[in-house]
């Protein structure tokens, strides 16, 4: 029943329930060795080969879907946004003023916010992720390891809108009162911590992003740390190294490329994260040195303005979307190359 259906769905010369095809099918279905041997003696029929051929083409077609989708993504959005690129050109990334009513579309402050929040996220998340990866692979007993891996993965399963909800209603007021205000009152003389401290800020968005990318960076760091050969570790320990010295001298140098790659993939994710950031960033297109000020990111400005926008404004938002796409793709490709190289170098 099943083979019938799958053969019928097949394009190509064998699509119909031809009599020759029918008899072939029954031959192959018989498990008797004699029949199989008989079949082996015969040269394979042309029909059988062409069925395989069309099957191959069918699968190839489905595999090509990803290529088509990615190409279409870039082409279609660029095409729709083209008038913006044509009219504003480089001003899109060099000018700061974004005022749709006045035909002013400078996305510099969004680019600044995107990079700043992602850098904060990386600075917070990477030491934590490496710590978890080392703990899980080198220190924790087996049972705890399984549990911890599961819990960190659970962190990745939480939808970003839930991070945003919690970030906005719980974390943001708490950080404002118990972290940003004290820090800026003590260290306010340093420009990046200058007050007045606002809960809706680059810093809060950075913290939320850090929590969100910890699972990504940890997963890759864990993978590469697990690839370090036992001999190297044992050699270090045999020379009298403490566990930390073993990690520092044998494990970390070996896993470095992979950790850098994982960091870049986390950075790429942070650059494109939208909803959680849109809820806590404050929505103010400004470039301020202080991380305790409200700002905007490319992704969050698209999320906030798109539905109210019309005409050229929509095209401008599409244009900065293309910009974000290109940046994240570059960061991701670089990250993948590092991870691939790490995995190959260690294999």
């Amino acid at each position, binding site marked *: 029943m099943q083979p019938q259906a799958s053969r019928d769905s097949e394009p190509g010369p064998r699509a119909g329930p031809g009599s020759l095809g029918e008899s072939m099918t029954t031959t192959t279905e018989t498990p008797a060795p004699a029949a199989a041997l008989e079949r082996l003696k015969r040269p394979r029929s042309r029909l059988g080969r062409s069925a395989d051929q069309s099957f191959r083409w069918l699968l190839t077609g489905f595999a090509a879907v990803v290529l088509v989708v990615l190409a279409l993504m870039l082409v279609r959005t660029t095409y729709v946004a083209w008038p913006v690129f044509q009219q504003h050109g480089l001003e899109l990334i060099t000018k700061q003023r974004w005022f749709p009513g006045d035909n002013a579309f400078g996305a510099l402050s969004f680019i600044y916010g995107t990079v700043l929040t992602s850098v904060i996220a990386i600075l917070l998340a990477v030491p934590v992720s490496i710590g978890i990866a080392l703990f*899980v692979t080198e220190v924790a007993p087996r049972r705890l390891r399984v549990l911890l891996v599961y819990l960190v993965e659970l962190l990745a399963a939480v939808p970003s*809108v839930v991070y945003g909800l919690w970030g906005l209603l719980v974390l943001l007021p708490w950080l404002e009162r118990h972290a940003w205000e004290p820090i800026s009152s003590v260290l306010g003389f340093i420009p990046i911590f200058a007050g007045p401290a606002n809960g809706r800020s680059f810093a809060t968005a950075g913290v939320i992003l850090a929590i969100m990318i910890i699972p990504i960076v940890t997963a890759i760091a864990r993978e590469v740390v697990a690839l370090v050969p036992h001999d190297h570790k044992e050699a270090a320990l045999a020379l009298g190294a403490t566990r930390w010295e073993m990690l520092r001298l044998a494990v970390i140098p070996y896993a470095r490329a992979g950790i850098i790659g994982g960091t870049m993939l986390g950075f790429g994710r942070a650059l494109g994260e939208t909803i959680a950031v849109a809820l806590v960033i404050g929505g103010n297109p400004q470039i301020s040195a202080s991380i305790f000020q409200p700002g905007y990111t490319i992704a969050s400005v698209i999320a906030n303005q798109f539905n109210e926008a019309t005409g050229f404004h929509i095209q401008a938002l599409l244009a900065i979307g293309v910009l974000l796409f290109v940046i994240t793709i570059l960061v991701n490709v670089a990250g993948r190359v590092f991870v691939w190289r790490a995995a190959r170098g260690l294999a």
Partner: protein
Amino acid sequence: MTRRRLTDQLATGWMIVSVLVALVPLAFILGYVVYKGAGIVSWTFLTKPEPFDFTHSGGGVWNGIKGTLKLLFLASLLAIPTGILAALYLNEFGRGRFATAVRFVTDVMSGVPSIFVGIFIYSLIVLETGHFSAYSGALALAVLMLPIVIRGAEEVLKLVPHELREASLALGVPRWRTVLRVILPAAASGIVTAAMLSVARAAGETAPLLFTSFGNRFVTGWSDYGSPDSALPLLIFRNARSAYEPAQQRAWAAALVLIAIVLVFTILGRTLAGRRAFRS
């Protein structure tokens, strides 16, 4: 000697603190969602749509639940078979330059910001048809699911022992039947896992739906994919940013429902993986 030992202890301390730093937010987020949402979730909450403005309490999130289920259904229908067939290609014939390109692009696609997928489908479909629709939302989710299904299914297909394929081919079974009747069934449970995880991921996405499915306070029919439709993440997003207490409470409770849906798919996927026929 003491300094070395002290450094070692400090390093161990750093690792333990790292673990705590990751787990504390997890506990707080899940704890808050349950604490704030559990009191509000009720039968009415699950079966009634949203009230007509954010100042009103009462009502429910049925429009969001139904929308999410509809979107996931259509998105799965589009992405899962395509993904599995593409993975079969990579596993069976995936050696040349074309296959490398497919693998690479699949990896790249899994890093595309989800908001960009939203504006892509907007410019491709919504701009052409002139209105928001559930099917455009489902298409956006399908684009996000595709790379997850492909990579997940390929990982599992790789684990099918080579002997199975060789045995089948040696019996004179054509390649296509070997793939569909031997390789695919052997990897089936693992593929189901990959599919479930991709559904779980899509269930929580907000950004791709903002400009495609858009949202809707009305409950739409099961087969109505032409109208704008709500989804739980969209509903949470809009209620969360409202300044009104009843809306925020609704957001918490909806988040509880959403997390439950995501967990159901995740756990379903993981338990099926536990019963896999082949292990590496």
